[in-house]
């Protein structure tokens, strides 16, 4: 499997989101990880004692825990060669006009300020390790909504953060990358929606990793209080450099009684990034958590959003698209725990493997004794336009209750010569015909995205696949 350890990414210059731009820092930590670096990060951020201790404990766990070996090959990942913290600017901006020109350019190329004006309720921009721009429409601020970067939240809302940050949902001792994250996390989004508040426009954060051999460890913490609802979107990119970088994010979501949360993420990392994330939601009585994910780019991605259906009637929906091209390994899936009666879950996972790419669906479905009347349906569709790519399905199911309804479907499809001929006979070129079949394949997930994202995702996927088929 030598192709996994190739570090040079394939250039695709058309993609402005991946164009390398000048690096700029006012502070950059030394390479590698040590107790001193963890303390340094905490000191620079002027953190309270409890957070400093959380980091140091996590560091101890990181040193103790082994690199996971049950999934994709991570032997090309060298923890000593990564820079764990870099800060570009002092302070935060509330106005695009104040943002330094080169950072502004990066974000304008990806269309962020335009999108904010058009259809978002609030925006955070993060460049390297920390957020630099944040804005929430006053309407929501007045209703008590909190939307800021997580570093700011540690200072301004310590009680909320201390209660929820890597305590009940994801613990630092779970695995090596969660521990690393706990030790060096920086940036990310903190979102609190008070009881009964329904935010009818999406909130968005955009992460940009611009320096070579760097790590990005943003921590997103979302609390949707009883009866409230929110849609949150995260977009991520990194430019193309010849050295491996690491993205190890943690997302923790608390969906309280009767609340509803949709977390959407479109990730387009450059093809030398290890994208190893841990995302989990705890869903209480009658709450609904929806995960919508599009995973493009990166060298290796491991991502299995998890829903813990803790309260009676809680529901989870997982929709995921993974695209694996040459030299890429996408190991993605869903974990669902049915812990209460009448809980329900749906998983629709779609993958496209081409040019020798590997995509794996890895799922865990657990229904405990007593979770009577629970319903789960898992559907995995793989599309492979050629004969050199790989698609795997590894569903793990553990059910200890008899009164449940389960469904599992897995299909592998190819783009048939007949389909391509059919579409070409309507005047489409071969490439357009293949793109249209691919778009149709992804349509059930694309249609859940806001229009701007749907268009962008279709564009990114056809760009990734351009020239690799036919």
């Amino acid at each position: 499997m030598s192709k996994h350890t190739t570090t040079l990414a394939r250039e695709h210059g058309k993609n402005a989101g991946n164009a390398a731009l000048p690096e700029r820092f006012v502070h950059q930590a030394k390479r590698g990880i040590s107790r001193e670096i963890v303390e340094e990060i905490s000191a620079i951020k002027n953190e309270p004692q409890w957070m400093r201790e959380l980091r140091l404990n996590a560091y101890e766990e990181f040193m103790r825990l082994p690199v996971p070996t049950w999934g994709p090959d991570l032997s090309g990942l060298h923890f000593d060669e990564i820079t764990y913290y870099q800060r570009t600017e002092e302070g935060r901006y509330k106005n695009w006009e104040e943002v330094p020109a080169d950072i502004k350019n990066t974000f304008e190329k990806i269309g962020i300020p335009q999108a904010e004006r058009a259809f978002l309720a609030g925006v955070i921009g993060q460049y390297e390790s920390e957020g630099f721009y944040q804005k929430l429409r006053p309407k929501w601020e007045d209703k008590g909504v909190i939307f800021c970067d997580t570093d700011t939240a540690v200072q301004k809302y310590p009680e909320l953060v201390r209660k929820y940050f890597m305590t009940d949902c994801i613990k630092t001792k779970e695995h090596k990358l969660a521990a690393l994250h706990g030790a060096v996390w920086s940036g990310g989004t903190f979102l609190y929606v008070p009881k009964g508040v329904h935010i009818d426009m999406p909130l968005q954060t955009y992460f940009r990793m611009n320096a070579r051999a760097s790590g990005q460890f943003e921590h997103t913490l979302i609390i949707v209080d009883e009866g409230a609802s929110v849609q949150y979107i995260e977009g991520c990119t990194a430019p193309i450099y010849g050295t491996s970088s690491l993205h190890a994010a943690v997302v923790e979501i608390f969906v309280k009684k009767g609340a509803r949360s949709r977390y959407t993420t479109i990730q387009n990392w450059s093809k030398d990034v290890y994208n190893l994330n841990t995302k989990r939601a705890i869903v209480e009585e009658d709450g609904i958590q929806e995960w919508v994910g599009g995973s493009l780019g990166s060298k290796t991605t491991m991502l299995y959003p998890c829903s813990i259906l803790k309260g009676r009637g809680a529901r989870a929906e997982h929709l995921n698209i993974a695209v694996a091209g040459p030299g890429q390994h996408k190991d993605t899936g869903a974990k669902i725990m049915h812990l209460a009666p009448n809980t329900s879950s749906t998983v629709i996972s779609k993958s496209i493997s081409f040019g020798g790419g590997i995509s794996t669906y890895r799922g865990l479905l657990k229904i405990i004794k007593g979770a009577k009347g629970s319903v789960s349906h898992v559907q995995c569709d793989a599309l492979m336009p050629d004969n050199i790519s790989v698609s795997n399905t590894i569903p793990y199911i553990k059910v200890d209750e008899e009164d449940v309804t389960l469904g599992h479907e897995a299909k592998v499809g190819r783009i048939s010569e007949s389909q391509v001929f059919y579409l070409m006979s309507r005047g489409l070129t071969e490439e357009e015909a293949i793109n249209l079949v691919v778009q149709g394949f992804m349509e059930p997930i694309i249609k859940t995205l806001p229009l701007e994202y749907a268009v962008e995702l279709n564009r990114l996927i056809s760009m990734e696949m351009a020239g690799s088929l036919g």
Partner: protein
Amino acid sequence: MSTLTIKNLHVQLENKPILNGIDLTVRKGQTCVLMGPNGSGKSTLGNTLLAHPACRVERGSIKFGKHMLSKMKTDEIARAGVLLALQHPQAIPGVSVTNLLTIAARKFPQPKNFKMAHFRQEIKDTAKALHTPDEFLSRSLNEGFSGGEKKKMEILQLSLLPAKCIVIDEIDSGLDIDALKLVAKQISKLRKRGVSLVIITHYNRILRWLEADRVHIMHKGKIVKSGTSALAKDIEKNGYAAYINE
């Protein structure tokens, strides 16, 4: 102008000779019917006209006006105005006929005053004329459609793209009599626009509503008899036997 000319066409399918020297001319606005028993090569001829990758032209040529179709790719042939209604239309999950048509329409030369909004309305109007409920316009194309619905979708698409010559492969199979009437009526509209028609059929049911200018009988990859619509009537009465006994 825009005459379809097939000369000495030899075609192989999976290394087996299927067409063994076809000569055929269809003038602008003419309706030409190709009949013949199963396996006579009718559908292969239709697919070859649109350069299906499985059909290998060994000898001969296909010309449409100034375009040498036998040297062109499927999409180039379509954009030159030669379109095919398939015998077995493919399902395209997640893509509706409206999606496909709005993409396809942009690929063709269109009049200066072409407006997408107007085109979308035309899609709806044509569907109405074919008694196709609106929901079929937004569902995944051909996925779970009945045989009849698929055939109507073919005629709908060909009616809305700027075609000059239309090849219709076994449109009558899977259609009940009412649906066949509607489809024939729609095809007649195209003929009035000056579109040439090549109708491939096993039976002559559709000819009750569509008058043919020329009828050709195919057997073993050759045209064995040509005539007027009287020939089709004769076959209806007496079968193919009289024409295919060598």
